[in-house]
């Protein structure tokens, strides 16, 4: 059997069946399980807290399970199984791997459990809907725009990403490259993409290496909270502080110091707690039958307003917020 054979026999199967009833009442007393990539990860904790608050408001209960390592895919699969066994009504999953969770998630869906992915998606047929932190396109393009402005549209830049396999980072990086094709960036050269595996020490050393290899480097984009923090820490303790610009995705609490001491001018992020909240509300809407995950369906997510389901069941949170020293003190996450 070859890849071609498989391709020809596979038909895109719709993940969800049934018909949506936009006016259905929201059910109460549901249990929604949150399964982040890693428990104890501040970002996910913050997201899941958002989910918890929303569920409480909706009269449903929340639980969080998950592996203690962000690369323990088999652990995550076991947790999908666990949630299935516990017969939760819906689960919100941030997938460590787009494919590995599929079998287990399909198993869950066939047991009448609604599956929402958030932050990191799986293959579309393995879940009912994906709550995206911001459209990948927005994120990728705005990061380039941010940095270009800081370095005056001129000079060498590099990317410090997370793991080489991190799905969302890779999509953003593709959009970054696409954005750079615009003629207004003709003096900017992306020299290299390196991977810090979301490990502080490794990201730290990768930053060092970048600066040694490209002494003329003007800027770094790090689309990962761990990476940007490590890079900022290195820059702030080195002679490059303030000279090499750094931007990307980070949390205000992590980056406050570096923004204040001049290492970083500006960076961006969505509010993770909003992401979690939307995931929770989407789950409840799915269970209640307001939506099924088909393109074009709409639903109201409490105070957050109305959302429309896009292609492949993607629901987008909206544009990210840019943090600078002027506004950073207004945020606490």
């Amino acid at each position, binding site marked *: 059997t070859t890849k071609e054979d498989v391709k020809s026999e596979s038909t895109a199967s719709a993940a969800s069946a049934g018909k949506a009833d936009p006016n259905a009442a929201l059910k109460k007393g549901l249990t929604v399980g949150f399964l982040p990539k890693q428990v104890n990860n*501040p970002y996910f904790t913050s997201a899941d807290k958002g989910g918890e608050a929303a569920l409480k408001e909706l009269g449903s209960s929340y639980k969080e399970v998950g592996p203690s390592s962000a690369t323990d895919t088999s652990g995550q699969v076991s947790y999908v199984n666990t949630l299935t066994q516990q017969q939760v009504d819906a689960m919100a999953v941030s997938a460590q791997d787009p494919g590995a969770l599929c079998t287990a998630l399909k198993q869950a869906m066939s047991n009448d459990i609604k599956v929402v992915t958030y932050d990191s998606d799986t293959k579309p047929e393995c879940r009912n809907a994906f709550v995206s932190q911001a459209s990948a396109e927005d994120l990728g393009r705005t990061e380039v725009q941010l940095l270009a402005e800081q370095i005056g549209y001129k000079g060498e830049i590099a990317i410090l990403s997370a793991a080489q396999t991190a799905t969302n980072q890779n999509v953003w990086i593709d959009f970054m490259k696409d954005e750079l094709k615009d003629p207004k960036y003709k003096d900017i050269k992306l020299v290299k993409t390196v991977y810090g595996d979301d490990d502080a020490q490794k990201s730290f050393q990768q930053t060092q290496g970048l600066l040694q290899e490209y002494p003329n480097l003007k800027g770094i984009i790090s689309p990962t909270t761990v990476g940007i923090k490590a890079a900022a820490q290195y820059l702030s303790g080195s002679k490059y502080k303030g000279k090499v610009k750094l931007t990307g995705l980070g949390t205000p609490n992590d980056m406050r110091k570096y923004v204040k001491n001049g290492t970083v001018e500006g960076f961006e992020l969505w509010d993770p707690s909003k992401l979690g909240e939307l995931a929770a509300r989407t789950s409840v809407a799915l269970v209640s039958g307001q939506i099924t995950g088909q393109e074009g369906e709409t639903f109201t997510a409490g105070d957050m307003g109305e959302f429309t389901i896009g292609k492949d069941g993607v629901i987008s949170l909206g544009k990210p917020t840019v943090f600078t020293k002027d506004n950073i003190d207004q945020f606490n996450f």
Partner: protein
Amino acid sequence: MTVTTPQNTPVTEVPKSSGTRLVDRVFKMRELAILAVFLVMIVITQLGNSEFLTEQGIKDLLLNATILVLVAVGQSLVVITRNVDLSVGSTLGISAFAAGTYLQGGGNAVVAVALAVLLGIGFGLLNGLLVSLGQVPALVVTLGTLYIIRGIDSIWVGSRQITAADLPDGFVDFGSGGLSAVPYLALIAVVVLVATAYYLKHFGSGRELYALGSNPEAARLAGIPVRKRILVAYTFCGALAGLAGALYLARFGNVDSGTGNGYELTVVSAVVVGGVVFTGGSGSVYGAALGALLLTSINSVLPALGVSSVWVLAINGILLILAIAVDRVVALRVAAALKKRNARHG
């Protein structure tokens, strides 16, 4: 107990036999080999990238090695006694967080370091007690405490994290500062290293660590307080892991529940590359420190040479194997030469 000491032997000149110098050389050889590999690597990198050995570059190189050197020194003491401590990574993580939590409230930096070291000592004692009193295999016990400490750490820390913003500026600056190209942290590591090496060579209890690693049964018969020594080795190892935790905090300014995760493999690699033998009784802390320097430098050299990070891991592994293989071949050659000489004059 009387000892036949030199009082009654003529204090004539002791002829240093040729075998002696050869034996000495065998041991020095291993360290020299690592040093040579290290230097060659640095020179090649410098040729390929003139930015590599700038002041900042040297500082980075030394800073990167510092923490691993400290932990590796502690680990070698334990390995010399024919044991191992796999829990160092967990200990490092939890003591870094403890120090960070204390400093968050704006505490005194010295107290924070002391706190981290004390915590390390505590876990070292726990390991030491289990291994020496329980007389159970160190590998299993410390794999167990690796999990236990890691678990306690994650339960305690949860999703909290300490960031540079929470720490006193002086502390963080100390972590990246130094006397021109020599960081303060590296100075601390060197002091610890030299003191430990001196202790191992020139003090009775230091030699006894080698003895009991070399032949535990004979050590018991020779009246060496085996359990006490093992306990001390573990405690020292824990203390250094704790100290390393505090320095980690100063250096990276960033600690969470994952800090130090998986560090034990790196430490064990450094010790092994440094020629400290896992069956105990031989090796030196200088070797271990060189091993640590070599390993961390590879991680700086490859990016500096522009090697794609995709290749880093593979090259790392292959270099590690080459290092121990070359070391082994050299050692075998020298041992063969030694044996032939001995056979002739014996």
